[in-house]
């Protein structure tokens, strides 16, 4: 659904639920997910409904993901890094993750 305006930039590879995704240096996790066509990044703790990045500026908390083992990170505020492991967060966060 989304296309990059500019394909320039250093290639960075992250994993999303173990699958390798091509990103660019300077992407946020949320932008990388969107560019990779990933439709949702978590399900809600209350109803289990799927959620995707929305405001992209740290306000709406819809893009919560687990990043390198830490849950409930705001994907739109975390820059990608080579080898970063992103996981879809299903429902309530697990304490200690």
């Amino acid at each position, binding site marked *: 659904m989304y296309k990059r305006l500019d394909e320039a930039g250093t290639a960075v590879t992250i994993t999303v639920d173990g699958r390798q995704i091509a990103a660019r240096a300077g992407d946020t996790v949320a932008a990388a997910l969107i560019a990779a066509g990933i439709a949702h990044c978590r399900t809600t*703790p209350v109803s289990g409904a799927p959620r995707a990045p929305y405001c992209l500026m740290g306000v709406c908390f819809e893009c919560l993901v687990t990043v390198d083992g*830490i849950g*409930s990170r705001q994907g739109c505020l975390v820059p990608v890094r080579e080898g970063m492991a992103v996981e879809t967060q299903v429902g309530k*966060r*697990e*304490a*200690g993750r």
Partner: protein
Amino acid sequence: MAADDYDVAVVGGGLVGVATAWGLAREGCRVVVLDEGDRAMRASRGNFALVWVQSKGLGLPEYAGWTIRSSNAWAGFAQTLKEETGLDVAFQRPGGFHLALSEKELEARANVLRRLHNQPGIVDYKTEILDRAQVAKMLPDIGSEVVGGSFCPLDGHVNSLRLFRTLHAAIKTRSVTYLPSHRVENITKEGGEFRLATEQGEIRAGKVALAAGNANMRLAPMVGLEAPMKPERGQIVVTERLRPFLNHPVVTLRQTDEGTVMIGDSKEESVDPAGLTIGVSATEAERAVRQFPLLANVNVVRTWSAIRVMTQDGFPIYDESETHPGAFTVCCHSGVTLAANHALTVAPMIARGALDKSLVAPFSARRFHVQAAG
């Protein structure tokens, strides 16, 4: 409004008031609840939601028995509310803990329990001191600093915001008249009935039950009673929703049925409900992380402060007026824990028009005048 429209006017629409009103309606009374508005200082919206037994009764052993009575009645109370309203208040009684972060804290805790149990007439409520290994069997996620704790199998908790909502739904179902924005300014007794002056006119009733929390201090003298209060502020920190990891409430920390973790047991003398002391929240959070290190990275989503309803000695006050027969006080700190008693035991006494001295005599405010009475 005709003079005989209400058998009982309950002053106060918080947990104590609505629990009492519901119990009165179940006895067939025509009840009106006179409440303040949405901006009222309301402990029912800010409390920690424990249905708690351990530690209760040091200095007044009958309070332990009174608390256990309510704790034992709670499951049936919750079930009846569910049948009447369809709402589940999520009452659980898995047993609860005090945790100690040093040998000194554990010894202090053991001393409190010894003093409590050594009182004449105390009911044994089976609280025991457990060492670290015993605690870890029931709370596997405790931190390395936890040296032990005390455990009482009677302790439990509830979703108290839902309890508040459920009781309001229940009084509505039972045709109790609920009048918000009716702060009671004055109470007189004329011609055998009580006249309650409110900001929106006069309400008349055959009896009056004062269940207005800290405001009972102002109201009780109007009907020949007294309620010496000592309000204090408490603060609570709330985390995001987490998968269940804590099967037992701890006195300062519990995981709600919805997954959030509530942290807090602070006491401050300030009665400014709008204020919040960040240092207090930080201390609460720091102790919580030492007790359960897996909380270290968890996000806090809310903090709040609320004013505790607190009598001067911390024990409940139940009284009936000698100068104004038909006027009662129902006043306590633990509006959640004692809700079952207020609904099922105290309300029927008020409906009958006399407190059962065998149950509540120790809780008369006359205890504040031991010298004068002697």
